[in-house]
């Protein structure tokens, strides 16, 4: 599906992350692109290739889709030099999504770190647009420093609105006016996460170290592994489970995932 870049926002002070807002060239493509928060799509730049990126906008935001792109490889480096008005492509939506059918009527705590926050942004915006469908909502989000937090204006707005518990944290800062938490995500999770309950679900998405150290915290709090939801990454090409690249056991992360409960992951070969 061909799209036009409508807006580019540099998100972080290191300029490695930019959010691209795309509008579809064809109205029918826009209507066909019906996604759910947690899914991803392949961004396509002719001459360079495709790259799988989580969808940062919520299905409740109409008329455009947003992706936050880290400058890493061939396609993303090129994208960082593109301008508003340039034409590129989107193939998707792909993969599964956070289990909204299950999460309705439940407490949700979102635990995110670094730039893996994009599909979590989609999820927060989605839940806020459907606020009465969820019980308590908490967001624990950390980055190395204040300047590396994504979506800072929105974080502040969510905090101010007060209908979700925002727990923003940084590993460290020399900013004397910093009014949020200081500490790693697992530490803040220990202090701020709601108590375990069959009706409380944790969505965890972040760098491997954060996930590794957050899990024992959730275990200590008593979260069941069916109530911990992870989103995985892998090198991908086709995005529809046929090119054979992103498997863990007999599951393809692109098609059967990227969202898996920790319980499901426990029963898959350890190749993450």
């Amino acid at each position, binding site marked *: 599906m*061909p799209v036009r870049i409508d807006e580019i926002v540099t998100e972080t002070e290191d300029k490695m992350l930019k959010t691209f807002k795309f509008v579809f060239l064809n109205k029918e493509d826009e209507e066909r692109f019906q996604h759910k928060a947690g899914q991803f799509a392949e961004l*396509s730049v*002719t*001459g*360079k*290739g*495709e*790259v799988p990126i989580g969808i940062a906008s919520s299905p409740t935001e109409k008329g455009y889709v947003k992706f936050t792109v*880290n400058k*890493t*490889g061939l396609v*993303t480096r090129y994208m960082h030099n593109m301008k508003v008005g*340039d*034409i*590129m*492509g989107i193939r998707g939506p792909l993969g599964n999504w956070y289990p909204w059918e299950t999460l309705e009527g439940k407490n949700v705590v979102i635990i995110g770190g670094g730039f893996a926050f994009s599909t979590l942004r989609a999820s927060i915006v989605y839940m806020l647009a459907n606020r009465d469908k969820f019980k308590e909502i908490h967001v624990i989000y950390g980055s190395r420093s204040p300047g590396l937090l994504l979506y800072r204006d929105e974080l502040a707005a969510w905090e101010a609105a007060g209908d979700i518990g925002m727990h923003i944290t940084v590993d460290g800062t020399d900013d004397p006016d910093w009014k949020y938490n200081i500490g790693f995500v697992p530490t803040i999770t220990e202090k701020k996460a709601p108590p375990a309950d069959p009706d409380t679900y944790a969505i965890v998405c972040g760098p*491997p170290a954060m996930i590794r150290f957050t899990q024992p915290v959730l275990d200590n709090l008593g979260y069941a592994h069916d109530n911990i939801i992870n989103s995985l*990454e*892998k*090198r991908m*090409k*086709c995005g*529809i*489970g*046929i*090119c*054979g*690249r*992103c*498997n863990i*056991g*007999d599951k393809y992360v692109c*098609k059967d995932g990227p969202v898996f409960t920790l319980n499901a992951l426990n*029963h*898959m*070969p*350890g*190749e*993450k």
Partner: protein
Amino acid sequence: MKVIKIDKNQWAEGLAKLEGSYRMFGPVAVQGKFPEFRELEKGDVPNLDVPNTHLSAKSVVYPQSEVMFEYSLDEHIEDHHLLREIEKDYSPRAVFGIRPCDAAANLLVKRNFDSKEYRDPYWADSFESCVFIGHACENPGGTCFCTSVGFGPFNEDGLDLLLVNSGKGGFLAKVITDKGAVLAKSAGWKTEGDAASIESLKKQAEAKMSSKVNTDQLSKKDATALFDAPFWEDIGFACLNCGTCTYSCPTCWCFDIQDEVKNKSGVRMRNWDSCMYPLFTLEGSGHNPRPQKHQRVRQRFMHKLKYYVDKYQAGVQCVGCGRCVKLCPVNIDIRTVCEKMNSYQPA
């Protein structure tokens, strides 16, 4: 089912007749090169005397490199930077001399490319355009083990016609499908043949199979236990990660997608890829879930002999053609690996 007798002259005449209405494929022996399976050029005849080709016949349906889209990067052109579909030739193809193992492999691979969820148009349209004229193996090779994985030297799965040598350059042809019957009719092959002699030749060929592999326990094993089994480092120790096994395999289907640009025009294409290469899973962050060679070797065997078995409940993803056994430069043998997996009991 009908059996037709084709003598040497009728065979040559039939091929000539078919040339006009089919794109012709088959094994070709070129002096100084390994026999290869490819589209026949004018004047080529399928050489059915050659044993199984080094590379399987999968390239007929699934070329090693295939362009999917083209585009222009020239901003003076209206649809610049937009993908354009490429016109493909899916006119009927006659695939002569495909061995029963390679024909059966297409059906195994079809589960990946043509499922209820997704139909890969390039693979499926190609597959459907083919008439497969198989050639039975009277003398199975030493590394062949097709009878152990549910097939055999005279197997008919995935074939439209099966040719059996009847001496003096002639064949007995078993008509398996309507597509096969149509082709035989267009070729003018119609003399009734003797079905009983095919049966006896089949029994003789099966009796010559020297390799036997057990696969009966694979579906009952726990995938994570097999994954964690202690033998993988041993199995992968000598592996060079050359990828010969995956390229020669008729059931390996993994592909890569790449863009190629020359001046202002470019294509997006797909190419066979191999899970033996570290780049196959290397992520943008630098993380690689399979950085070590024994992990990649494990992936290949686990995919064929366990993940596929679990996913489709229809046997292993292997037709026993024996190519990877014969061609592996360090003698890694899927038959040995399969036995290890099949008999593995976690401590």
